[in-house]
């Protein structure tokens, strides 16, 4: 890959992932630059979420490593890994809010655990984060009282609580209405521009991929490895691999003909 290593915020190097004997993906090799929106894409069941779990330290790789700012993540000690985890926030697929706490408590917990900010300031920060995701005034609600989309946005507010350098999103726009999905995309770009956050998004929503993606990796379930790395719009127009072009054009071939899935 022709990319300066000094610029890389996250480097995935020769990563192989498996559940027991069942190989998910092998030889993944790409890097994410500081302050870019990076998309992990591919069809259902290709291991996108599994890759995310490796990147955030929930599942150990079979071989290979992930580097944060040049420092090894999986060959580090447990304490070093815990410390590295503090620099990222994660938005899980369905929010993963703690059901025994109100939204304000959910968002405030990381601030209470890891900073020495006073209660009044925490209340201000929580109100601001909830407003950013469009949930102003919902601080006293419990997760079970919210719709799926609202839970997801609240999960984002919690992921952003500590101003992380890296934000991970697992299927951010799934289950959101088009307008909320658009607002979320704008928020992702805004976080990148205003705070310089590096964003990694697992997604197969084409509209959102083209709208926000600076760079992307394409995983394939059959080949069990990455097929392409690059800007998603360029991949759509000129990827040498027909599988990648078809995916990014919703199954249409080069002459614009829609081909039913399964044919060809």
């Amino acid at each position, binding site marked *: 890959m022709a990319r300066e290593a000094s610029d890389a915020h996250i480097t995935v190097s020769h990563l192989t992932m498996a559940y027991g004997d069942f190989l998910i993906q092998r030889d993944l090799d790409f890097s994410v630059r500081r302050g870019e929106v990076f998309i992990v894409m591919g069809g259902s069941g290709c291991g996108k979420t599994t890759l995310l779990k490796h990147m955030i330290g929930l599942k150990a790789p079979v071989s290979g490593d992930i580097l944060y700012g040049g420092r090894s993540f999986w060959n580090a000690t447990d304490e070093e890994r815990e410390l590295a985890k503090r620099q990222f926030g994660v938005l899980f697929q369905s929010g993963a809010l703690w059901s025994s706490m109100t939204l304000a408590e959910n968002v405030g917990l990381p601030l209470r655990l890891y*900073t020495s900010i006073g209660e009044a*300031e925490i209340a*201000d920060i929580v109100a601001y984060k909830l407003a950013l995701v469009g949930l102003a*005034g*919902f601080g006293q609600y419990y997760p079970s009282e919210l719709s799926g989309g609202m839970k997801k946005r609240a999960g984002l507010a919690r992921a952003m609580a500590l101003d992380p350098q890296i934000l991970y999103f697992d299927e951010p726009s799934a289950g959101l209405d088009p307008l909320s999905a658009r*607002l979320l995309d704008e928020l992702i770009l805004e976080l990148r521009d*205003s705070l310089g956050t590096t964003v990694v998004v697992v997604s197969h929503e084409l509209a959102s991929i083209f709208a926000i993606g600076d760079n992307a990796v394409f995983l394939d379930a059959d080949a069990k490895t990455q097929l392409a790395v690059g800007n998603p719009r360029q991949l759509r127009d000129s990827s040498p691999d027909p599988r990648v072009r078809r995916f990014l054009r919703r199954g249409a071939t080069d002459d614009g003909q829609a081909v039913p899935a399964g044919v060809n």
Partner: protein
Amino acid sequence: MSSPPAQAASLDLLRTGEGVLKVRLAGDWLLACPVPSASAVLEQLRSASPPRRVEFECTDLGRWDTALPAALVAIRRVAEGAGVPLVDERLPPGAQRLLRLAFAVKEREGARRVHLHRSLAEQVGQATLNIRAALVALLSFIGVCSQSLLRMARGRATYQRSDLLVAIQEAGAESLPIVSLISFLIGMIFAFVGVRQLEQFGAGIYVADLVAVAMVREMAPIMTAIIMAGRTGAAYAAGLGTMKVNEEIDALSSMGVNPIDFLVLPRLLALVIMLPILTLYGSLLGILGGATVSLVMLDVSFVQYVAQTADSMQLSSLLGGLFKAFVYGSLVAVAGCEQGMACGSSAMAVGQATTRAVVMGIVLIIVSAAILTVIYITLDI
């Protein structure tokens, strides 16, 4: 990354002649460092003579993170409430955009909640009403289960035989170890107490009567039922509650399957069938426990002990004990299933439903034990 030491953040106010409030922000506004409170601005905005507009002055503002927009959002919210316009064009462009984004979605009318303080009397009243509501819910659930049993008797209930068999195995065979242990030990404890007391009168052999009657009539049904309330009743509440959270029960209803028939009926039947059988087994183990203690502490043979036990047993005691087990089994199953089906839609709610199922099950067992004992004595069983 090495960053220069942070400059202390500051916030100064300047009120000009035309009623403009100038807020001068300086230094580094970072979460990691102490940040001045915005309350001075808020006081000005809330005062009797609020400023005509608020302007910002940021020439000396250094680095900033969430600390800055969090304060700005608090200021703008109060300013909007007071009808004071906020001029944000001097703010850093990033902060301006974040501020705009934070106010992009209007706060929904009536979304904000106010915590109401309730008086003691109100809380007591509410708690009483809750108890009544719980009783009504339990009774109506018993009614629904009875209807389901009637449907089953007419062969109209939809459920899977395999579910029933699995439930019977879980409630029956898999409970044998714990029932064995508890019953055997309870029998031993009774025998210890009995030997100490009856030996003083030279009536040691009557320990056999004491253990047999106590186990068969009272202790085996109650102890087995309490074990099953903690073991199987809790499992029913947690299992059904999780299915509720995952919308599995809605999925059954939408397919036209009555969830009571499909899920509750097999569990109810399993406990109602297995609890009397486990009680019988528990009585036997209890008597064995009593025999063990008596053989060691008294001068009796095993044959003597068994003959004395057989003498003391009446069919009515045995049937009375089994009927109690039947009643307790139904109550434990109903409590577990009712709490599971009424579970809320979060992980916390499953835990609460399980707790309530066990507490309710044990309370129902003890209350019905008292009522049944009075009835038995009156009827001279």
